């Protein structure tokens, strides 16, 4: 694991104490930060991520860290895709220029770099050493071709592009862009820090807000269900999808991040992020994540197209069957209790629908987890 390229603080400067989002950012930057490019949608993460003059985005002891930029709610996915295309263009340019310098650099150096696999961290580490050696070699050389190659040599190491934002972006305002980018087939990682509400602007309901929750614009309890973005993405067949909750299963979270990053195609990670807008004791945020999973509100799953290519079932249900009633999870959060207090009858009715939805979705997921591979779409790109 690479040294941290995220602040050592448990939560970043400017984030709420006990924020449920920042651990995911810390995790992915620790894993991939030295070669990451981040497109950050407007929202909490763009505020505490760019709370200038301070910023939690930092470099490791080798001086490497993520390149970060913030875009708008409505175009962040496309913005991130553009960063991917730019990185790919730089890589193609670098490879061409490397080939052009083959006589001066030698076959061994050029072939080692051009033919190197770059899927896993061990391979990437070796490639980084090769690129560093190349740059050292270029420092001993002169000429226009050398200068051209030096300007893009870092792109001979695979860039890890992360498109990051909250549910207000991914489910609502930027949803068309997210869908467009997922359908592009390009190698990007979309991380949705899902607080199930517009957190930064003060708790407005999003399409991720659960049925029965009280939020601004849903003061009488939200009467539509939470959108299952995971299932939407799975429908494409070639999108890696994971739903994670670090407080419930940190190992599954880690596995999902690594698989998503290694997958040569679009990845979508939906990360449960407890929030002040849930009305909980923020020191118990991870416990509440555990309850969310235990109640079936947030079933952990992964959809890995790589498994489909190997004729395995790509749908993995990672959490156990719900073990506590949805009521027990909801009773601990003010966003649900407010309705129980103000309109118990409606709260009971919506809770009942919510429990039915949990049961129904679990049955569907369980059935999917037991299917044969042939019942899932194959990746037509390969």
């Amino acid at each position, binding site marked *: 694991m690479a040294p941290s390229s995220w602040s050592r603080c448990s939560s970043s400067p400017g984030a*709420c104490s006990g924020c449920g989002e920042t651990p995911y950012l810390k995790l992915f930057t620790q894993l991939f930060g030295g070669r990451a490019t981040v497109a950050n949608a407007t929202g909490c993460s763009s505020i505490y991520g760019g709370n200038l003059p301070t910023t939690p985005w930092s470099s490791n002891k080798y001086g490497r860290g993520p390149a970060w930029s913030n875009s708008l709610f409505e175009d962040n996915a496309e913005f991130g895709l553009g960063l991917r295309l730019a990185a790919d263009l730089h890589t193609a340019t670098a490879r061409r220029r490397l080939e052009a310098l083959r006589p001066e650099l030698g076959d061994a150096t050029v072939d080692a770099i051009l033919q190197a696999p770059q899927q896993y961290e061990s391979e990437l580490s070796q490639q980084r050493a090769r690129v560093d050696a190349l740059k050292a070699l270029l420092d001993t050389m002169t000429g226009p071709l050398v200068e051209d190659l030096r300007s893009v040599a870092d792109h001979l190491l695979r860039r890890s592009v992360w498109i990051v934002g909250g549910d207000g972006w991914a489910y609502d305002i930027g949803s068309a862009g997210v869908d467009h980018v997922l359908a592009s087939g390009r190698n990007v990682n979309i991380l949705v820090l899902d607080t199930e509400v517009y*957190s*930064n602007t*003060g708790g407005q309901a999003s399409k991720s807000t659960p049925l029965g929750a009280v939020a601004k614009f849903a*003061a009488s309890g939200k009467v539509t269900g939470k959108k299952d973005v995971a299932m939407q993405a799975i429908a494409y067949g070639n999108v890696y999808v994971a739903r994670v909750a670090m407080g419930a299963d940190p190992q599954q979270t880690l596995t999902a991040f690594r698989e998503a990053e290694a997958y040569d195609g679009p990845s979508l990670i939906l990360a449960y992020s407890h929030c002040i*807008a849930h009305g909980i004791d923020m020191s118990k945020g991870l416990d509440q994540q555990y309850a969310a999973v235990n109640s079936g509100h947030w079933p952990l799953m992964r959809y890995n197209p790589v498994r489909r290519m190997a004729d395995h079932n790509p749908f993995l249900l990672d959490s156990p069957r719900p073990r506590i009633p949805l009521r027990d999870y909801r009773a601990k959060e*003010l966003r649900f209790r*407010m309705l129980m*207090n103000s309109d*118990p009858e409606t709260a009971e009715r919506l809770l009942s629908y919510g429990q039915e939805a949990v049961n129904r979705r679990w049955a569907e997921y369980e059935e999917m987890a037991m299917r044969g591979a042939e019942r899932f779409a194959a990746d037509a790109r390969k």
Partner: protein
Amino acid sequence: MFLDTDYLGLRLRNPLVASAGPISQTVSGVQSLADGGVGAVVLYSLFEEQLTQAAERDAFLEEAYADSFAEATSYFPARDTADAGVAASYLSLVERSAAAIDVPLIASLNGSSLGSWVHFARSLQDAGAAAIECNIYFVPGDLTLSGAVVEQRHVDIVSAVKQAVSIPVAVKLSPHFSSIGHLASRLVEAGADGLVMFNRFLQPDVTIEPIAVVPGVTLSHRVDSLVPRTWIAALRNHLNASLAATSGVEDYTDVVRYLLAGADVVMTTSSLVRHGAGYSAKLLDGLQAWMTRTGHDSVDGFRGMLAVPTDAESNAYQRAGYVAALEKAKSIYGSLV
């Protein structure tokens, strides 16, 4: 056969009342109690601590991050301050339960101090409660606190609740006072329309493996009826207030005993928890069968037959309290217990 009974100025169809307990936590539970045939239902107790702590907790969670970031001044929609957690839930339960049953619904407040919760009694009245039962559950742990202060606290609470409502107020008492008769008189003077005798204090228990203190929650047994029945017999003819007996009802014979001692109504939770809400029908059947066998056609006709008579010597109370009174009663009517 007439079972109808006056309690707190309310006319009940019979003297059996479901006391505050777990069955009345839902509307359907309250309905099952009423359907079982009881004359009134006392809702489960809303605790002072629940009122204050839940409201404080939710208010804290709601406001903890308000105005802490430039982008938003709050994180929850504005709400009516009356939507104060368990308070609103309890009020809703009172409202829905009172509408759902055809017998009086008595709301129960459990507290031990004067505070805003006292004024909540008014909200209970507005929600449809026919009466309020104040369960003053106070365990004095302060060694410097005198008995007089404890008694005054009870009187003050009753006065405050009475000022807040126009519906009847009953007081559920502890049996642990130096002079229960005197305190009872003071509470009636302060406005109590009735006394519920007695509250069972759920003292913690101890387990030895593992060594631990555990909550002592138990259902009552017949033996628990001795103290309340004795005091009801002693006070029946000396107080101008309703008397409710509670604790230790196992079958209809306990109902009869309490009525003979002078109880206006007999409350039970333990037997209903043990046998189901429908058990009240069996208790009432047993009561009526006994009345038939003994030639009583109304509850009023035999209520208080074994109570201490009005003209019993007051010296007896001063000399040895209720034990002497019982001896006196025994010499006239035979054993009360």
